[in-house]
């Protein structure tokens, strides 16, 4: 197997995630797209790990999975807080920081 087939799959998923983050209005959908990005990074890490024949990439992949779980927990808590205060999770409604 070529290492490139995994890397290109990762790149494709990453770009899909970027498109999702940029176009989605619903905050939960943005978090879903971020998960897509994190998964593509994991595929890349494990492919490079296999290419170089060491095991460090697996450790980093596990760390990324743990960080992603923490990120989803805090992210969804924030989304719920926003929903409670504004009765909407549309990111276009959150414009308080606009100068």
């Amino acid at each position, binding site marked *: *197997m*070529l*290492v*490139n*087939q*995994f*890397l*290109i799959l990762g*790149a*494709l*998923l*990453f*770009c*899909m995630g*970027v*498109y*999702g983050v*940029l*176009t*989605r*209005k*619903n*905050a*939960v*959908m943005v978090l*879903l*797209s971020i*998960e*897509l990005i994190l*998964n593509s990074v*994991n*595929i890349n890490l*494990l492919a490079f*790990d*296999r*290419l170089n*024949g060491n*095991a*460090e*990439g697996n*450790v980093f992949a*596990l*760390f990324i999975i*743990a960080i*992603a*779980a*923490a*990120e*989803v*927990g*805090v992210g*969804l*808590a924030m*989304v*719920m*807080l926003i*929903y409670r205060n504004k009765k909407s999770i*549309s*990111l*276009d409604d959150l414009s308080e920081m606009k100068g």
Partner: protein
Amino acid sequence: MVLASDIQVAQNVGFAIIAVAMIIAGVGVIASRNVVHAALSLVIVMAGAAAQYVLLAAEFVAVTQVLVYIGAVMVLFLFGVMLTRAKLGKDVDLNNKNAAIAAPVALLLFGVLAFVLLKGFSDDKIAATTGNGARPIDTATLSDLIFKPYLLPFWALSFVLLAAVIGAIVLARKD
């Protein structure tokens, strides 16, 4: 010289099928007009990623992916969808007006990434996962790595998780 054992037909066919399923489901995640359908498409992407990890001889990460992502994170997401009372049916108001900018950005990014990858790793092969000289990464090697050289990052990670748990409770509770 290309040996017959280097081609790995079965692995390549498996890779292709899983990759196509992942890409179709990924398009579902970013294009679906229904929040729950998008979340369920993400399950397919994550299961496909776990299968790719098995192809890359990372069984422990694959099992962790299934347990943590498909088991825990997706349940969190479905709870998030439920508690924010997202419309369960078709929702026309799910995208903002950035698609005209986002599509070129994503396509350009993919073009640059694909160019660099094809140029840099043109025909590098990954080590065989079976047969002579194969060195599958077993859980013992992995735990030796985590609990010896990466012990400090592992501690830091546990504190991050603890902080995230406390932070999520503090943020989400009603006063």
